[in-house]
């Protein structure tokens, strides 16, 4: 019984805290908004980083939080604050991508930099892991932006289908089908290179 109660109460408490902080922010309490940013900065940054890349993730995260700040009065509590914030974050990230022209060039540079950084001081296995990680991030960014967002939200952030439907503003029934296609596309991209597709022993 205690376990059941715990599972049911935890999300409610989190939502209640967010709701209270939103109300205080709307009343002009900037410290309450700061607490909201503190609570959600991790997930916002992760999603932004996976969609636009590490080089622009901080700017996109800041943009998302400021957009949220100016639209707090539109938060109705129909979805969780996190879902609402991730919707804003995803939109900010997609807007950023649509403005960026030379994305592929930048991404290659960033991936190379990630692998080269402090290379001489790392063991071989760690180097290989970092290289695989950088290459995988690069391949992920090779996906079209809407597929990339889906994959990030489901397979990396592990959101529920309902949360994804709310975040990306798409019918719940479309999420699974599109996710299947997104995974298929990433598999095809990885299979183009044996090194990328083979799993390390």
């Amino acid at each position: 019984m205690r376990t059941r109660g715990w599972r049911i109460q935890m999300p409610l408490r989190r939502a209640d805290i967010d709701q209270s902080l939103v109300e205080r922010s709307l009343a002009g309490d900037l410290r309450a908004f700061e607490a909201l940013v503190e609570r959600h900065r991790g997930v916002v940054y992760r999603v932004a980083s996976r969609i636009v890349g590490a080089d622009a993730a901080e700017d996109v995260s800041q943009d998302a939080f400021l957009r949220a700040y100016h639209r707090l009065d539109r938060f109705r509590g129909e979805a969780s604050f996190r879902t609402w914030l991730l919707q804003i974050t995803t939109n900010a990230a997609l807007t950023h991508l649509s403005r960026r022209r030379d994305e592929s060039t930048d991404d290659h540079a960033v991936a190379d930099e990630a692998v080269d950084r402090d290379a001489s001081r790392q063991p071989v296995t760690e180097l290989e892991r970092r290289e695989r990680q950088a290459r995988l991030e690069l391949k992920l960014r090779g996906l079209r932006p809407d597929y990339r967002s889906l994959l990030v939200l489901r397979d990396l952030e592990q959101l529920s289908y309902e949360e994804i439907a709310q975040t990306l503003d798409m019918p719940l029934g479309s999420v699974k089908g599109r996710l299947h296609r997104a995974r298929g596309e990433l598999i095809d991209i990885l299979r183009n290179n044996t090194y990328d597709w083979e799993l390390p022993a």
Partner: protein
Amino acid sequence: MNGPDPPDELSPAERSLDRHLELLRADPPTPSTELVARVIHAARWQRALRHPLLAVSAIAGVIRDGMLLLFGASPRR
């Protein structure tokens, strides 16, 4: 690929993909310590500017309406 929903039914290729993605899940990117301060700093000055800008915008609207009234022009369709 487990969210709050039941686990997805995955093909063998999707299971392999999931093992690849574990590499990214295991090492998530983290924001700099300055992110919160940057957001709050920007929110503070934007909030300070918001009311004056809204007031200027309202005054400009009144002036435009007055001009239209004085010179008898009708608003553009």
